[in-house]
């Protein structure tokens, strides 16, 4: 095989038949789709019939590592997971940091595709090309922490890496995540897909080489580009010592911090309790993902109070938002407790927090009654009630069974106008970035493949950015569709290569020569910038075609009613609202930038141009 950076093999696992087999990953496919995200949508678009149940035996789940993964390049450790989502009912993917993806490659594979359903709980063990389906009866019901440790112990492999689910995934909670170590590919409920297949974990270990096309060139490039760009950068000085937990302070000051189920975007009364300065009081050490020079993840131990001694990696910004500002919990120590709980049970902390905030507002408005709550006093700020409710969700007990469906389905079932308080787009709960104050982000949520996700479009509107032809006007709609068009090409291409989106702070958020250089040094193809941009367009458009096949069009590319009806009530962005006209303008721009039609459907010409016909 000519190309480098790949293992050249895909492992196909049929859990219904209990069979595993290796397939080739041919050059022409690598050239057209690169890997990870590209390979996933190529496979799932061809192999999943429209309308299938995401939690049924017809669904498949894809785990992958891009060509850059396993090399010394920093910001390349993403573990990529994709499937048809039980939360959105559409194609969805999620990525995690950590060490799993690199180890998958050393074990001999670029990807694992799991299909069918096992009769009993199992896990998959892959080492140096060999794969084995093993009994997981003793692991079923265990937390993600316990299960991963037990697997390493029973295999006698201290350095093996796992992706696994917790009890939430086993019980098919629609927002259960996939956990790689303590890193979560959290969003869109892919953990529930694993649970529906009775697949507890995929554990990998290997001693095979990851080769690159030009190792001397790469070594030189490493020093000249990423390492030298990194020194003194925001990633070096900011993220590496503070992580994303530095962001609550920033967003609070901007007045763009989703608070109390997005009824406002300021949380003045929390003081500094959710800021980095408070978090520092419990910092133990800093961590890195595989091969990375940044140390974004920090490890925290609760120093005092009722949750004293609880340890977690993080919390990340989104978790501080979901439990802190959304549920009015002005206490970092409590947020850490909730974060750890989500990690152990295997829940997406964003959807969990937003679902709790939704339920709290429903309780307040009388849409959920006391009787339904089974004695839990679910009101804003009541941490103990939140813990109890999370346990009910994980076990699907009482009203937990309803909330385990996510805000969209839960609101439909509650009725009586509860949908208004369900802050989701296409079924996915919103992360902590403003739709009203940063209009481009709002558009990103409205059109995102995954629904309200901050990694399709990105929130890049805090300062002017020449790469995006952006002047710094956050509330302006015009130009934001084109801007997110540029960004989505980049996010899709990045997810194909396997690199972390934080590298945007190093290489820029628009595909440029630097991305091509990196890929060519590893792969040995003579990719051009145009060709790489085309990969991003091809992958993003094929994702759209999957969604279109499931019935998605312009009518679905919208936002929660609250963002149209209620303006931000206070703070620097007081008065900001999204109007339908603004959304229409941005949608037109965005579709035009991807050359989809006015209804958001890729045109036959565009499909042909991207080589996606047939």
């Amino acid at each position: 095989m000519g190309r480098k950076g790949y293992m050249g093999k895909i492992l196909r696992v049929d859990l219904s038949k209990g069979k595993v087999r290796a397939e080739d990953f041919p050059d022409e496919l690598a050239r057209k789709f690169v890997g990870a995200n590209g390979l996933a949508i190529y496979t799932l678009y061809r192999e999943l019939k429209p309308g299938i149940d995401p939690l049924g035996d017809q669904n498949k789940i894809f785990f992958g590592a891009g060509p850059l993964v396993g090399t010394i390049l920093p910001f390349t450790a993403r573990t990529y997971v994709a499937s048809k989502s039980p939360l959105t009912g559409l194609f969805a993917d999620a990525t995690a940091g950590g060490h799993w993806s690199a180890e998958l490659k050393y074990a001999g594979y670029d990807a694992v595709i799991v299909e069918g359903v096992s009769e009993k709980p199992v896990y998959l063990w892959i080492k140096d090309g060999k794969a084995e389906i093993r009994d997981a009866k003793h692991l079923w019901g265990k937390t993600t922490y316990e299960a991963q440790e037990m697997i390493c112990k029973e295999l006698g492999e201290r350095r093996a890496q796992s992706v696994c689910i917790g009890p939430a995934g086993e019980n098919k909670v629609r927002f259960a995540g996939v956990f790689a170590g303590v890193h979560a590919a959290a969003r869109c409920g892919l953990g529930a897909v694993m649970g529906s297949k009775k697949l507890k974990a995929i554990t990998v270990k290997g001693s095979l080489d990851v080769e690159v096309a030009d190792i001397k060139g790469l070594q030189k490039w490493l020093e000249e580009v990423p390492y030298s760009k990194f020194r003194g950068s925001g990633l070096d000085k900011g993220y590496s010592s503070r992580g994303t937990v530095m962001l609550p302070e920033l967003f609070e000051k901007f007045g763009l911090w989703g608070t109390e189920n997005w009824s406002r975007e300021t949380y003045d009364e929390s003081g500094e309790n959710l800021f980095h300065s408070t978090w520092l009081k419990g910092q133990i050490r800093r961590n890195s993902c595989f091969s990375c020079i940044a140390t974004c993840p920090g490890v925290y131990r609760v120093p005092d109070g009722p949750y004293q001694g609880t340890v977690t990696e993080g919390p990340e910004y989104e978790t501080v938002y979901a439990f802190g500002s959304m549920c009015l919990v002005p206490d970092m120590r409590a947020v850490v407790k909730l974060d750890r709980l989500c990690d152990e049970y295997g829940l997406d902390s964003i959807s969990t927090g937003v679902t709790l905030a939704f339920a709290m507002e429903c309780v307040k408005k009388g849409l959920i009654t006391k009787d339904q709550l089974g004695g839990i006093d679910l009101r804003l700020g009541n941490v103990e009630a939140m813990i109890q409710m999370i346990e009910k969700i994980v076990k699907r007990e009482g009203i937990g069974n309803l909330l385990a469906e996510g805000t969209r389905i839960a609101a439909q079932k509650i009725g009586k106008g509860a949908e208004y308080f369900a802050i989701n787009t296409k079924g996915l709960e919103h992360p902590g970035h403003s739709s009203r104050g940063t209009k481009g982000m709002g558009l990103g949520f409205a059109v995102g493949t995954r629904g309200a996700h901050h990694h399709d479009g990105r929130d890049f509107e805090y300062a002017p950015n020449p790469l995006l032809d952006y002047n710094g006007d956050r509330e302006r709609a015009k130009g934001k569709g084109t801007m997110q068009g540029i960004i989505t090409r980049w996010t899709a291409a990045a997810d194909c290569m396997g690199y972390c989106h934080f590298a945007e702070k190093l290489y820029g958020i628009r595909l440029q020569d630097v991305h091509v250089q990196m890929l060519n040094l590893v792969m040995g193809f003579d990719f051009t910038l145009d060709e790489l941009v085309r990969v991003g367009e091809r992958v993003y458009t094929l994702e759209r075609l999957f969604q279109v096949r499931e019935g998605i069009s312009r009518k679905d590319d919208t936002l929660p009613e609250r963002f149209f009806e209620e303006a931000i009530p206070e703070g620097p962005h007081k008065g900001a609202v999204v109007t339908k006209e603004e959304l229409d303008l941005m949608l037109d721009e965005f579709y035009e930038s991807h050359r989809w039609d006015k209804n958001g459907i890729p045109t036959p010409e565009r499909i042909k141009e991207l080589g996606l016909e047939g």
Partner: protein
Amino acid sequence: MEKNYVLSKPELCTGCKVCELACSMVHDGVFNPEKARLTIYASSLEAMEKARICVHCEKPPCQGACPVDAISKDPKTGWVLVDVQTCTGCGDCVKACPFEAMHLHPGTERAINCDLCGGDPQCVAYCRPGALLFRDKGASAFGGKSNG
């Protein structure tokens, strides 16, 4: 005789394994942590362990255990070196080393330990957090001079 070895400071280690990648890159021209001459372990979320790397013992147990005299201690530098031509890959040295610093290369199946890259250990050069220090010389790629 000068002490000459890579010192591990687990309290500074972030677990990125760039050291292992740099090691296999410069020795083997590939990326493969199993071919690296040092190994990093996390003991838990809260702490890393000391890197498993040769400390070039005064009286190396590996040398004593080797049945074919493939391991020598350089009288000038004090470095413990494996002669791969002589090594048979029996693994006796691996068992003898109390620091888990000797292991068999998965490609050649011969014993490998830290050879200090001939005097400029690249694991140290690439370690951004400064968790690996060369006792005598060598600058970190991130500007920090190692302590002496």
